[in-house]
């Protein structure tokens, strides 16, 4: 990722095991901290939402590998989390509820028999620029 343009992509692949979620949190938090236009609260929201999505992927994913892709663009930070689980969607899940509350755009695509992709994004607010310096 280029810190100069503050744009870029990050790919992570983790084993579908609970002990790896803290590693994802740390990575997302580190990446988000480099994006000037995110407030502390935005970073915490992003960290929790991505971790919730990973937890969901682990619980549904039969231990299969999970792919996480994080894209920083001019206007937003977008993260997708793909599992290879049963693809069952549970809308009443507290984790999904939290993700929908903390992030601006959330979509879940079910891939018949091949798991699901959860896509979420957080807008970059240019008013936050330099607030953390």
């Amino acid at each position: 990722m280029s810190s100069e343009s503050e744009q870029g992509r990050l790919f992570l692949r983790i084993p579908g095991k609970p002990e790896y979620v803290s590693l994802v949190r740390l990575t997302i938090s580190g990446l988000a901290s480099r994006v000037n236009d995110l407030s502390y609260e935005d970073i915490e929201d992003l960290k929790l939402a991505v971790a919730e999505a990973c937890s969901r992927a682990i619980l549904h994913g039969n231990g299969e590998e999970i792919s996480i892709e994080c894209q920083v663009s001019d206007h937003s930070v977008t993260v997708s989390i793909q599992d290879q689980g049963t693809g069952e969607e549970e809308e009443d899940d507290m984790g999904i509820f939290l993700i929908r509350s903390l992030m601006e755009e959330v979509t879940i695509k079910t891939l018949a028999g091949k798991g699901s992709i959860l896509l979420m994004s957080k807008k970059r607010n240019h008013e936050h620029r330099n607030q953390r310096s």
Partner: protein
Amino acid sequence: MDAKETGADVKVTSRQISPNVWMAELTGEIDVYTSPKIKEGITELIEKGVYNLIISLEGVRYIDSTGLGVLIGALKKVREHNGTIGIVCNNPQIKKIFSITGLVKIFGIYKDEQEALKSLA
């Protein structure tokens, strides 16, 4: 005082603070990996007959929905014995999660042990 190492970097430390109220201090990051250990620590207390409990999240840096699930489960159990759980928490991010999920209406959230104890006594 009973400090129980519960795996990863989470810990449940409990002590009796009044004739019928116990305090459980949780520390660390509570997530899908560590919450079963927190659940074990709290369940052990309830099984000992502790039904009025103050749970302090002051040492908790992070909690997710699985951690909240543990707290909800514990509240259900103590309510079966006419007990209750008060939460001590001042971390704005954690308080925000309690607020978003509506758990502020189910748990009493207090700024310190004294305030929680006054409410539970």
